[in-house]
């Protein structure tokens, strides 16, 4: 401590001055982030979730966009699916979500209710974005109550991914219109002959149960709640658990351990239900050959399938609505951007991009052939936007399904718990 009071005062003043200057500096730095550069160009934040290949492809399309629109800069933000929505929620609640972001049908009502999503129809009316040339009516996937809250980048549908070698070795075949009984009989043959499980845990997948319900004239979600009964779900989970115990469905302990890798690519089972555009992951992860097979049916015809979509949405409070709309328009219509993206987010949604990309690798070809086949079979239904809280219900479905698979929760108790959690989620 300095002995002299005067020195001390001077020191204090100096320190105070320095901290004030420091504060001033940080304050200026804080402004730098979002404001527009002096040359009239604007910066948009664009966020998505997905794996490495998607990120690399998107970055290429961004470079393409910036070349065409030199006045607009794009700042990319990306992460995996679960982290994406946690981060998004925090940003959005603070009034600071990205200007443009990837979105899905399960989140439209949720964030519309919270006032986060821009109605892109107004931008289309202003001529900043075209809503023409979308294939197979997928544009409707982004509509809620007459508003266009998302613009689809692709179309995907649920599929059964099979280990082609295992199916061939066991001498079983997946054919269009096969029934659940035939499917499980095929799994039984695989189990008997190859000593591996048939499936990785079908009954924990909400989107598959949705198809099953649609085959019975119901659906997982109505506009405001659940479209099935506790008894329906108890039955579905009880059947599933029975098949875990018999070994037809893989041991959940083993599936858990290989996560985030899939049980199918880890060789624990011969098939797995997932979205067709995800099928690319198996080739990378596993050692066998993988192919897309039809969804089993109840009546020998209807699979209950529909075309889902990943889409692009814009923040309702963005400072640059016009530029955000232009960016979305470019990303869904530009042929070159479509060629770069391929079918990573589903079959390209607009005719311009669909015509521009001709798949050459077996994976993309397989996805294209699969969706063609599904479309030709005339089984495609319509999807309604999920109620707010659907994402929480999906997570609960997976979690409780896992508890049932592990034998920790009785199917009836699990169904009751899901209904309780769903009620809270819809209210939130």
């Amino acid at each position, binding site marked *: 401590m300095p002995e*002299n009071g005067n020195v001390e005062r001077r020191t204090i003043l100096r320190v105070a001055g320095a901290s004030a200057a420091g504060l001033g500096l940080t304050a200026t730095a804080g402004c730098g982030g979002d404001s527009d550069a002096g040359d009239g160009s604007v910066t948009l934040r664009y966020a998505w979730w997905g794996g490495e290949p998607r990120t690399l492809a998107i970055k290429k399309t961004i470079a393409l966009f910036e070349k065409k629109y030199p006045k607009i800069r794009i700042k990319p933000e990306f992460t995996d699916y679960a982290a994406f929505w946690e981060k998004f929620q925090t940003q959005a609640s603070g009034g600071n979500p990205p200007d443009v972001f990837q979105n899905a049908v399960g989140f439209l009502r949720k964030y519309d209710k919270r006032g986060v999503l821009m109605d892109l129809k107004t931008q289309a009316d202003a001529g900043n974005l075209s809503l023409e040339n979308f294939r197979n009516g997928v544009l409707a996937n982004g509509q809620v109550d007459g508003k266009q809250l998302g613009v689809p980048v692709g179309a995907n549908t649920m599929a059964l991914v099979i280990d082609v070698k295992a199916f061939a070795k066991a001498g079983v075949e997946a054919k269009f219109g096969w029934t659940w009984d035939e499917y499980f009989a095929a799994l039984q043959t695989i189990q008997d002959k190859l000593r591996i499980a048939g499936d990785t845990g079908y009954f924990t997948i909400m989107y598959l149960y949705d198809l099953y319900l649609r085959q019975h004239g119901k659906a997982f979600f109505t506009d405001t709640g659940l479209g099935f009964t506790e008894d329906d779900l108890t039955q579905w989970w009880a059947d599933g658990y029975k098949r875990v115990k018999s070994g037809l469905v893989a041991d959940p302990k083993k599936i*858990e351990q290989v996560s985030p890798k899939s049980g199918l690519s880890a060789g624990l089972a011969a098939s797995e239900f997932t979205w067709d555009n995800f099928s690319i992951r198996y080739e990378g992860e596993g050692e066998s050959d993988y192919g897309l097979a039809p969804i089993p049916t109840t009546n020998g015809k209807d699979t209950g399938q529909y075309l889902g979509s990943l889409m692009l949405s814009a923040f309702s409070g963005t400072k640059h609505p016009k530029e955000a709309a232009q960016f979305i328009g470019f990303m869904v219509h530009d042929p070159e951007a479509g060629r770069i993206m391929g079918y990573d987010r589903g079959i390209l949604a607009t005719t311009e991009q669909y015509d521009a990309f001709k798949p050459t690798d077996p994976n993309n070809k397989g996805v294209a052939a699969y969706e063609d086949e599904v479309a030709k079979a005339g089984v495609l239904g319509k999807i309604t936007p999920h109620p707010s809280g659907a994402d929480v219900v999906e997570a609960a479905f997976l979690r409780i399904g896992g508890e049932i698979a592990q034998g920790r929760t009785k199917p009836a108790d699990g169904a009751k718990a899901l209904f309780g959690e769903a009620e809270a989620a819809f209210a939130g």
Partner: protein
Amino acid sequence: MTLVEESPVHAVRKRSAAPGAGRRGRRQENLAGYLFMSPWIAGFLLLTAGPMIASLYYAFTSYNLFTPPKWVGLDNFTTMFQDPRWQKSVEVTLKYVVVATPLKLLLALGVAMLLAQRRRGQALYRAAFYLPSLIGASVSVGFVWRALFSDDAVVDRTQKIFGIDAGGWIGNPDYVLYALVALSIWQFGAPMVIFLAGLKQVPRELYEAAEMDGAGPVRRFWNITLPMLSPVLFFNVLLESIHAFQVFGSAYVVSDTRCGPADATLVYTCYLYQKGFKESQMGFASAMAWTLVVAVALVTAVLFWSQKKWVHYEEAAK
């Protein structure tokens, strides 16, 4: 002059102060002190105290981050106490605290006693044993743990040598929590260092006298080391249990962010996180947080109360 001015305390202070620097000087000294502290005070008020008070309010509201919080009174607490997943998270956390804390301290004490003896390279040994507690909390070690305790990995193979065919621990709801316990025990470095310091404080002559009276090593441990070490032990028990109640990172990473399987690693903070950030029930999450604060305070109070019975302070013995 005032009464205060004449007090002996002041006289002492005045002598130590610089000539010419009276009350004004002291005030300036204080001012300087506060100025130097101001970043921390500001940080505490803005980043700790403020949010805490806010969360206390949210605990009595229904709040989804977007719409303004709605006052619901004690609803969050009544829902919480009836919620089976909340009960499960309490059960998992208590199990973790009760198993991990004593084992970790036991190991820390054992190793500290070995390291207290003078030998060549003791600094190296101390550093080596301390190292895990520096890196153990990191995300990458969480991943390593996941790998170690999976099917056909190190742990599985080792247990097979002993004829135990339990498979990997990560996917098994019965065992996975013990993988977390092992991770906690492995980070025994911090309490070990404190034990080491405590051991150095035990007067040599006590041991010498006991040895002369024919006390063996076990007797010396129970009658000298442990009583003399009890204040340090108390400190470690307190710190480690408070720490264990708040475990999050290891459970989150080792379970691949799901705190499973079948909620087997659903520690309290993990459920709090899920409620707040995945299900956007911030009111409920705040209620959970404050319940944890109260519970930890209660545990601390009980420990403080119990120390009268088993903690030996040298001053008191004299």
